């Protein structure tokens, strides 16, 4: 069969962007689950955690369930209030054009996470595996790791693979620290953050919505830690960008490009019959004009701006990575069956959010659907599924 010589079918390219965002989310969740399983024997550490999230109430295993729930609710309200206040502060600073300050703060927080949190987790791992290393070497390695990470996050000219990897590492480290919170506080906090995300992005007065609108109106990038799912090697990028530039030049009545049209009409890549001549130019001319187009006007590249990221890549905030991984990490502290169920629920939620993104074409909150589905599946698995499956499997009864 000569199918190999024909064009590749749509199965090869459809869904590529979704898979490109699911892969790092899955890697982040897997790393947190592995970290939690390796380091989970320490119950003494969790009692000494005092963060903003436990300021109102420190969970005690001897409290009744209702007390724990009330305490957790109090903790989450405090946390959400602090996050709201900080986000409004962010919006205010962005409004007054203090973008440089925000960028420096972003780099500083990346350094804190990579240097201090990463360092502590590294020390835990060294303790567990009894790895022989002296503190000066460790300090040197850690410092280099953290500083390269700050540059990767800060500057946009870094190779995209390194930036993406550092984003995932920052997500893993922050998520692992969040899993050290007491159990009820974690679950109520996740639900509270999901509801906050929903309100902040969709309500007219929400801080995140204000931020996105400001950024779009000024045509700037939001200074935040955001994972951009661009491919590592993008062969299509040159032609796409040049297609835009060409189209702009054509509108200003560039006569030269018209004459090259008929010659290349026969080389069109696409085979749709009813394409007008203008489209024919678009598809084929970049093959010829590539030599001339190296002097790209930079202002045309700015058209891509925000929305779906440059060249249609999907952007997912690092906070979403963190909270998904916290959910899965907490599920891992109970049993692996809940991990699998919550993983599938979160991926399903992410898929639904991406479909909604394609439908509505505006910034959407990524937390609510996934987190609520994840919590639902965790509860269902713990209450129903586990007993059923253990009953069946332990008698070697399967279907």
């Amino acid at each position, binding site marked *: 069969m000569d199918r190999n010589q024909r*064009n590749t079918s749509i199965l090869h390219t*459809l*869904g590529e962007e979704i898979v490109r965002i699911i892969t790092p989310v899955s890697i982040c969740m897997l790393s947190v689950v592995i970290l939690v399983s390796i380091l989970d024997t320490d119950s003494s550490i969790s009692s000494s955690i005092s963060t903003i999230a436990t300021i109102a109430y420190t969970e005690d295993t001897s409290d009744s369930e209702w007390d724990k729930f009330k305490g957790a609710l109090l903790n989450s309200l405090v946390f959400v209030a602090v996050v709201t206040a900080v986000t409004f502060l962010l919006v205010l600073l962005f409004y007054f054009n203090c973008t440089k300050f925000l960028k420096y703060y972003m780099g500083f927080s990346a350094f804190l996470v990579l240097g201090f949190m990463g360092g502590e987790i590294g020390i835990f791992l060294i303790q567990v595996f009894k790895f022989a290393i002296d503190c000066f070497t460790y300090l040197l390695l850690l410092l280099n790791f953290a500083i390269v990470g700050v540059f990767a996050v800060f500057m946009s000219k870094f190779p995209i693979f390194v930036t993406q990897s550092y984003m995932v590492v920052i997500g893993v480290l922050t998520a692992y620290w969040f899993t050290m919170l007491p159990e009820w506080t974690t679950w109520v906090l996740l639900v509270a953050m999901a509801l906050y995300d929903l309100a902040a992005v969709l309500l007219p007065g929400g801080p995140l919505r204000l931020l996105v609108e400001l950024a779009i109106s000024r045509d700037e990038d939001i200074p935040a830690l955001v994972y951009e799912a661009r491919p590592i090697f993008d062969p299509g990028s040159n032609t796409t960008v040049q297609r835009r530039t060409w189209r702009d030049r054509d509108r200003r009545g560039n006569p030269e490009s018209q004459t090259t049209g008929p010659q290349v009409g026969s080389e069109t890549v696409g085979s749709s019959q009813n394409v007008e001549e203008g489209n024919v130019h678009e598809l084929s001319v970049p093959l010829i004009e590539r030599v001339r187009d190296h002097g790209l006007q930079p202002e045309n590249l700015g058209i891509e701006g925000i929305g779906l990221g440059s060249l249609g890549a999907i952007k997912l905030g690092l906070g979403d990575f963190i909270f998904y991984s916290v959910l899965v990490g907490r599920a891992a502290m109970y*049993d692996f069956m809940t991990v699998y*169920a919550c993983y*599938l*629920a979160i991926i399903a939620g992410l898929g639904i959010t991406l479909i909604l993104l394609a439908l509505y074409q505006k910034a959407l909150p990524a937390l609510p659907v996934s987190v609520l589905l994840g919590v639902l599946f965790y509860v269902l698995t713990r209450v129903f599924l586990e007993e059923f499956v253990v009953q*069946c499997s332990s008698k070697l009864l*399967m279907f």
Partner: protein
Amino acid sequence: MTLAAGIGYVLLTLGPSLALFVTVISTKPFLILILLSSTLVWLISLIVLSGFWKVFLPIKTTTWWPYAILILTSVVFQEGLRLVLWKGYKKMEDMLDAFADRVAKPRLYLTDKMQIALAGGLGHGVAHAVFFCLSLLTPSFGPGTFYVDKCSYAPFFLVSAIISLAFVTIHTFSMVIAFNGYAQGNKSDQLIVPAIHLIAGTLTIVNLASSGCIVGIPLLYIVALSTLAYCGKMVWKRLTETQIRLTHQNQ
């Protein structure tokens, strides 16, 4: 027994699926999404079944017929879900063909449709392996092991891994047979899939008897291998007759 043994059990169950995944599915992102969705659908069906049976569990009697009813209801429910999946797949096929026309790419080939069915079946198989075998493997990563009274020939983890491997094969290829049967309206294909599932499920009831697994597991493998052979024969027949039809048209 140790980390190595634990990883060994995981690979025993999921090894062939991993090979299938890496060679066939990982190159096409759409098939990865189909795999994830079908795994999710199987999980949801399992949750519904467990919700329904929660009232009756734990089964305290040592007779076999409550388990037979359990298996029967579960298989019937899952086969019904397969029909729903087929209807959903038909709608999706129409949307994909319309999309292919819009971007001027060729419509779905026959091999593409079979690959989608394979990905769906593999999703079901992986979900089975994960929930019935892998989720219970956590103790095997530690220093000890566990034996079941009724089947004391091998550690419990090994036996459950072997049974899961058979079921992964059955789920993967029966989806291809089922979708092909629905597409061609072939009644025998459509009926053989629920029959295989039911036979496989009831064969595991044999494991309830003392030393029953000596008989049950080889029979289960006979069912799995015959599913594989039947699927291979059917696919071969379909592909060669399509090619014959194409060459006749060209003449």
